[in-house]
């Protein structure tokens, strides 16, 4: 069995979630290669070569892959696909974007967002916002799979893979990058943080998210939000936790002014310890919380910050 994993990166840094996708690949078993597609991404290649369990790093360093446009990346992966039985990517926005394109070009039904590997052709994945867990067998000879990173541990980074430079530079010519508007933050990535504190509609406005910042600073936490808080414009979209936002599973998740709709729970209920701060004792968030405080968040947050 040979497995190709698409490395998640931003041309500077290999995303830690890729280390978890490697663990998923090891559960399938086989010779594992990483593909780094980008431009001026040599630091990513260095990091990729150290990922344990990876024997080879394929590098497509070219302007055509700078922004990892789905049209171009999918053609690149298609060209490589012949040599592999399994093609995998992490279920983050880049992988979610181009992988189904690869699957369709290969005439394969993709298995999305797996949380466990039963066997080389059978996988477990959440459906219905995690309210049901499906065991799915792929009947295609080649597998195209995206992986929910929170469900797997990371491999170590003490490997030394061979680095192979590719000459591919396919530009489909139908799409181009215009601009990025990325949120700058000193805090850990939502997906990687061991503590996450999230605010919901109960925060009332964006200004009040400052009340979470002091606590996040003390705990080294990332800050997340519910859809309602993002829709209301309190905070940017990349902070949304949930079924259709980011999936997190930190050691500690603190939900503040969040009711606990199934779509929100889908993104955080695998957290180790959940704390809920909500003034409504009936809020569904308390059904999943290990520790709850029924109180006004504007009283609790300043006190919590001072006592940490």
């Amino acid at each position, binding site marked *: 069995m040979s497995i190709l994993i698409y490395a998640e990166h931003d041309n500077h840094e290999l995303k830690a979630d890729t280390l978890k996708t490697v663990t998923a690949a090891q559960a399938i078993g086989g010779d594992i290669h990483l593909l780094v597609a980008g431009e001026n991404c040599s630091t990513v290649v260095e990091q990729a070569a150290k990922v344990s369990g990876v024997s080879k790093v394929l590098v497509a360093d070219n302007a055509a892959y700078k922004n990892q446009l789905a049209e171009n990346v999918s053609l690149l992966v298609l060209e490589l696909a012949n040599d592999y039985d399994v093609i995998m990517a992490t279920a983050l926005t880049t992988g979610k974007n181009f992988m189904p394109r690869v699957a369709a070009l290969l005439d394969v039904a993709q*298995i*999305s967002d797996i949380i466990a590997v039963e066997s080389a052709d059978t996988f477990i994945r959440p459906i219905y916002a995690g309210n049901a867990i499906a065991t799915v067998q792929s009947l295609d000879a080649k597998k195209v799979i995206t992986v929910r990173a929170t469900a797997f541990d990371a491999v170590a980074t003490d490997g030394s893979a061979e680095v192979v430079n590719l000459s591919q530079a396919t530009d489909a010519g139908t799409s181009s990058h215009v601009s990025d508007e990325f949120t700058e933050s000193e805090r850990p990535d939502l997906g990687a943080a061991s503590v996450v504190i999230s605010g919901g509609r109960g925060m009332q406005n964006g200004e009040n998210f400052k009340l979470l910042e002091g606590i996040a600073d003390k705990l080294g936490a990332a800050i997340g939000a519910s859809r309602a808080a993002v829709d209301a414009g309190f905070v940017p*979209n990349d902070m949304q936790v949930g079924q259709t936002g980011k999936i997190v599973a930190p050691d500690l998740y603190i939900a503040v002014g969040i009711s606990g709709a*199934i779509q929100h729970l889908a993104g955080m209920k695998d957290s180790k310890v959940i704390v809920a701060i909500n003034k409504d004792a009936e809020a569904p968030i308390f059904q999943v919380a290990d520790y709850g405080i029924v109180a006004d968040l504007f009283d*609790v947050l300043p006190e919590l910050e001072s006592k940490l």
Partner: protein
Amino acid sequence: MSSQPLRLVGKLQQAQLEATMKVLVPIKRVIDYNVKVRVKADNSNVDLANVKMAINPFCEIAVEEAVRLKEAGTASEVVVVSIGDKSCQEQLRTALALGADRAIQIDTDANLDSLHVAKLLHKVVEEEQPQLVILGKQSIDSDNNQTGQMLAALTGLPQGTFASKVVVDGEKVNVTREVDGGLQTLALSLPAIVTTDLRLNEPRYASLPNIMKAKRKPLDVKAATDLGVDLTPRTNLLKVTPPAERQAGIVVETVDELVEKLKNEAKVIA
């Protein structure tokens, strides 16, 4: 000085081009998002008997966006299509009530993978030749997030997934996408495929007169088996189980108690 008439011609051509822009919106019938689904006792699947069904919320956003393009004079026609048995006509009628002009049901009661759906939609795209196809980014039942991208691959068209803003500009469409780091804007040549994210728009409610009007709008039914797509299953659903339930914990009375528990009982803070 001479650039003035030239620009006018450009504008005119653009207006003509835009006036003929057809938008295709594939929609899916799914469980209503407020319903918490239950797994069948025999673990064969989830139980959808007597459960409230609706248009997938992301598909509803797609319909709204297409209708707004028409209201803005950018699109000339909005065609909705759904693949499923007769029951999905209910969702097609809802889409017609929201402002779509005409509907197509691709009739089948087969269990389809996203790949099959994309292949069937590919046939519809070949027939209808839309300039823009707008789909939901994922359906809230299977949570696959595949169909739009697969359709883009099969048609060879560019894609703008997870869109929070769509601006048609002559022969291009600019799509702002919700990505992990924030927002990314791409320019796609038309025809193109767009999939919607939550912030693209807030769908309207269908008014009673529009619901009545929708009953008279055209709804064509085509048999999936007539479209020449191999619908042999590519996946086998072996089992569906309920998720591990979390035990509800305790309510603490004070912040001091909370901090103490987190330190000494849960041991998640120092």
